[in-house]
């Protein structure tokens, strides 16, 4: 079956602009996660959805970052007033139910470059 997909694969924007990154999870997966990966580092957790609600948003760096999942499937990560430090690979993952130890399946990521 289809895996997690993310669009766009690459996004170049200018400092101060607004961007949206989209994630389509595996069909039937109720849990969805966003991570950010800087060059040479491991992914860092941003936010976790269980269904439509954000169960844990403790990883969002500041209030310029926001994510939604209105119908419990597709999710959009929104970044306002982008800064050069936001440049990174943004990864989305989904898991079947989000219970303890549930395996997370990752998409290919969106590489964001803020000029």
């Amino acid at each position, binding site marked *: 079956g289809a895996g997690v997909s993310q669009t766009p694969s690459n996004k170049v924007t200018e400092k101060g602009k607004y961007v949206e990154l989209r994630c389509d999870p595996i069909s039937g997966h109720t849990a969805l996660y966003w*991570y950010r990966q800087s060059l040479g580092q491991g992914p860092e957790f941003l936010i976790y959805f269980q269904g439509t609600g954000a169960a844990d948003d403790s990883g969002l760096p500041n209030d310029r970052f926001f994510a939604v999942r209105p119908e419990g499937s597709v999710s959009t990560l929104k970044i306002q007033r982008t800064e050069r430090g936001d440049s990174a690979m943004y990864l989305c993952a989904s898991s079947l139910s989000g219970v303890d130890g549930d395996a*997370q399946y990752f998409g290919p990521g969106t590489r964001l470059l803020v000029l």
Partner: protein
Amino acid sequence: AQSVTQLDSQVPVFEEAPVELRCNYSSSVSVYLFWYVQYPNQGLQLLLKYLSGSTLVKGINGFEAEFNKSQTSFHLRKPSVHISDTAEYFCAVSEKLRALTFGSGTRLQVQP
């Protein structure tokens, strides 16, 4: 708070040689442990996971890992590597109902 340490940023090895990629974690509670692989320009792929039970876990592509609670380690091993195993390997830990915390990764470079 949980954390993961991957002691080696790069591991060069010759083809058909054995390899061990080290991972240590810290946590105040029981954890679940994972190894992921990231090939160039691709997403993270799950290699194996430890939830409970046998401390030796077998994964895909001939990899295995051993959970050692007393040493808080979860080292990844393969008895004979191939050129195609060249990639970045990430160890990750998850506490109860928490998202994954990743190490900084180990780049495995398999040379002919």
